[in-house]
């Protein structure tokens, strides 16, 4: 996957509450996402994973602002462009789908109208062309009898069908980057499997980059090439999906993996992580995971550990791996 051109480069991204710049939400988040790559972003509630998506899309609520960092989409730094320019990129170069499609779809507009609107506005298609293209899009997301479905209202569709419609709208302008925020969390498990299969095959066909946000490590195992583990707004670890599951390096990743019940083998007790995720405004000094960490050292409560490479494809923000070797921090943007 490496070596492909970067679709998205995020560098040193930090967000904070508008009135309290010291209360950071995301802190120093850096990663790159190549064409044709599926990056899974995993974290618990409060990890900042949805915040990251909204920041990249330029959809932050007014109470939160970006304090530093670059967001380069196909080489252009969106963080330095106007909100109009940012809006131009949304729906064209990048698109996003959400957990609950019912809240993203207009309940009083027919599904077809909503898809065709995107095609007319973003791709400047005529009415007839956009209608034809809308049918084609519904076929691509495997909705049976698409011409009839275009006339349906959102409430007439099942949850899985609505998510397919959202995917069709997201794909309408052939985005280079698709951000999917918990796209299957509200769905039943059999429907989730269908949607994940669909996302994977569409991503392979189009070669778009897919950034999939989830709290579910099972979804990560199903679909991701690489994984970024977020904890309390900071990157804890980035690794290939196999490395993360075989040899997680950050104590948080290790504990997270050990705390999921496993289908393949039954155990008497699950591993747990004491305490709870810290909240904005009450972030611990030093490593944000330190208060819950079984490997905590003196250094952990002094300063935040930098994300450094354990191997070329594997970065970890934990001092225990680098205690004896005072290595230089990894160059921002190249942390994979």
């Amino acid at each position, binding site marked *: 996957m490496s070596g492909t051109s970067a679709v998205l480069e995020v560098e040193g991204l930090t967000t904070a509450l508008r009135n309290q710049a010291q209360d950071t939400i995301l802190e120093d988040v850096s990663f790159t996402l190549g064409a044709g790559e599926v990056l899974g972003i995993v974290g618990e509630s409060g990890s900042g994973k949805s915040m990251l998506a909204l920041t990249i899309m330029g959809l932050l609520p007014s109470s939160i602002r970006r304090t530093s960092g670059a967001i380069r989409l196909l080489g252009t730094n969106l963080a330095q462009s106007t909100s109009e320019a940012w809006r131009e990129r949304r729906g064209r170069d990048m698109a996003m789908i959400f957990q609950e499609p019912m809240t993203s779809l207009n309940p009083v507009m027919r599904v077809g109208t909503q898809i065709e609107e995107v095609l007319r506005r973003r791709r400047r298609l005529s009415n007839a062309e956009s209608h034809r293209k809308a049918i084609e899009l519904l076929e691509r997301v495997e909705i049976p009898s698409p011409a009839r479905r275009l006339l349906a209202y959102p409430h007439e569709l099942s949850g899985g069908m609505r998510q397919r419609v959202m995917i069709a709208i997201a794909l309408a302008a052939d985005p280079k980057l698709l951000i999917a925020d918990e796209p299957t969390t509200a769905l039943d498990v059999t429907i989730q499997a*269908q949607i994940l299969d669909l996302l994977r095959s569409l991503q392979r066909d189009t070669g778009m980059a897919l950034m999939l946000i989830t709290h579910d490590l099972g979804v990560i195992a199903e679909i991701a090439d690489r994984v970024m583990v977020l904890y309390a707004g900071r990157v804890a670890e980035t690794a290939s999906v196999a490395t993360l599951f075989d040899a997680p390096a950050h104590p948080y990743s290790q504990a997270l993996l050990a705390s999921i019940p496993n289908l393949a083998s039954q155990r008497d007790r699950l591993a747990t992580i004491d305490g709870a995720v810290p909240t904005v405004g009450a972030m611990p000094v030093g490593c944000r995971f330190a208060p819950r960490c079984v490997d905590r050292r003196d250094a952990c409560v002094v300063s935040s550990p930098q994300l450094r490479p354990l191997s070329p494809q594997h970065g970890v923000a934990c001092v225990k791996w680098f205690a004896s070797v005072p290595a230089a921090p990894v160059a921002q943007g190249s942390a994979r």
Partner: protein
Amino acid sequence: MREVVRVGAGGTGRAGIRAVSGGATADVLIEARGLAKHFAVRGGTFGVAKKAVVHAVDGIDLAIRKGETLGLVGESGCGKSTAGRLLLRLIEPTAGAILHEGVDLTTLGRRAMRERRKNMQIIFQDPFGSLNPRMTVESIIGEAYAIHRIGATHERSRRVGEMLDLVGLPRSAAGKHPHEFSGGQRQRIGIARALALHPAFVVCDEAVSALDVSVQAQIINLMQDLQRDLGLTYLFISHNLAVVRHISTRIAVMYLGRIVEVAAADALFEHPTHPYTRALLSAVPITHPREERHRHELSGDVPSPLAIPAGCRFAPRCPFAQARCREQDPALSAFGDGRAVACHLAADGTLPPSQPVVRRAAPNSIQEIAR
């Protein structure tokens, strides 16, 4: 090869209970017989059309044994939550009986039912929505003592303190309000409230579904400890199959208001029999990127409980369906190994064999690495 005992169809079958519960009824704590709940709804736009009937639970036979955890799984709308509430008679059944220690709960009057409820409690999914935000933790947990007129005020305080100890909360929690706690702590309060009267039977309705995974593990461990220490019997309702497998002794699978399969947890995952069980289990996300899985894809969506298909309700989506499946409703038939399946083909042995749900390609597992 398989010895099949034919039992009555769901909804009518009183004769089948023994077979479904897998032997002697002596160890059964609570049992549903032909239990059904139909809700009347108004159809059409603005409710002007004539009434339609939702068959939420449509005749289930289910026996829960003392000390076991019976997992109840199925997709949204299958009726699993309704089934849990019916067993506690929190909602009135349309038909059927609920046997608890030899007494049919549906025949009890209000006072007698309230007395029984000391023995049977429920833990809900959302610990925020189910805890009154204006009450202190002490009054939330102690409410049960007040309702049942147990002990004087200081005695109730002492009992609340003991309950807090039991669920791993500090005694200082008693004077606080629900919003001062995290999701995991709130669920501990919900558990303390459910256990305040020392029930023997607890329905856990998606009790850990709203929690983050690391907190979910804490609560699952707590529930298992409490079960061991207090001898609790759980009906564990969840859509999370990995969690259900972890915690359950046996698992019942529901589809569209019916139980389609019941089996020991390991047996169900090693050899899911009913075609719906196969599809459901094979859709669970893998737990390691190198796991291989034989996916049984399901076409279409679950039919509306307003329009239940004739014959087997799974037939329209079943890859093995035959003409008889669309005509005759299959009964839940008991097999020799304690499994019960509602499928014509399984009953006469013509259903193709199933494969284990997951096969680990890599030698090392997550747990080995994490340890």
